[in-house]
């Protein structure tokens, strides 16, 4: 199962939030994850992709989102979500619980917190005016169960 690199590119439309998490779920399914791991990965991907749609491209419904998926080890999945939207000027601040620039839209500021609790590692690279890349790394317990 090592590697198996998948690259996917889709439009920043709201309905693609659910498409993106289904793709991630189908991708890790071959590694026989638990139902809980499946939900955790779907949730983390959902946060990363909706951030790209809502913040990166400011809900314009336009712009491309790229997702790269691979197994860096047979039980460790790597999912990188990239947008070429507005970017984040202060990543450290953005990652804080409850911090949101979308409070008027009832955004909770808990997106990064959810990603962090449902993944083993979250890497954020961003540059204002260039775009944002969020990498989720998740170890699946699958193989320890044997």
């Amino acid at each position, binding site marked *: 199962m090592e590697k198996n690199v998948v690259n996917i590119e889709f439009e920043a439309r709201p309905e693609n939030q659910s498409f993106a998490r289904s793709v991630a779920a189908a991708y890790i399914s071959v590694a026989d994850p638990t139902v809980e791991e499946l939900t955790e990965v779907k949730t983390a991907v959902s946060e990363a992709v*909706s951030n790209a749609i809502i913040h990166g491209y400011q809900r314009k419904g336009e712009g491309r989102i790229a997702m790269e998926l691979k197994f860096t080890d047979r039980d460790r999945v790597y999912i990188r979500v990239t947008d070429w939207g507005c970017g984040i000027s202060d990543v450290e601040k953005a990652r804080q619980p409850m911090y949101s620039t979308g409070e008027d839209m009832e955004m909770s500021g808990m997106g990064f917190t*959810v990603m962090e609790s449902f993944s083993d590692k979250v890497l954020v690279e961003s540059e204002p005016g260039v775009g944002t890349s969020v990498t989720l790394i998740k170890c699946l317990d699958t193989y320890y169960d044997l």
Partner: protein
Amino acid sequence: MDTIFYLQDDTLVATLAGEIDHHAADRIRSDIDDELLLYDVKNLIFDFSDVTFMDSSGIGVVLGRYKKIRALGGTVVIRGADSLVRQILEMSGVFMLDGCREEKRKE
């Protein structure tokens, strides 16, 4: 999926269903707010029993309604959340707010 409502005296029960993400949340939010305007509601019960997926968008839905209900002096109940929905709502601290109570999921 559509939110289903019923009114029990001055309490509105909103049964959410399907997958709650930021896309679906817009609709759920406005559906609930329409009902709150339509009837003389004091308290609100969110029933999550039929929710199959939820990300952090659910927090905004709950907190936003909580603020409206508190302004009316009412209370909010979270019912039927499964462990992952619970975990997400817990991160937001919503269960620790005054006037917000949890009712455990029936097993």
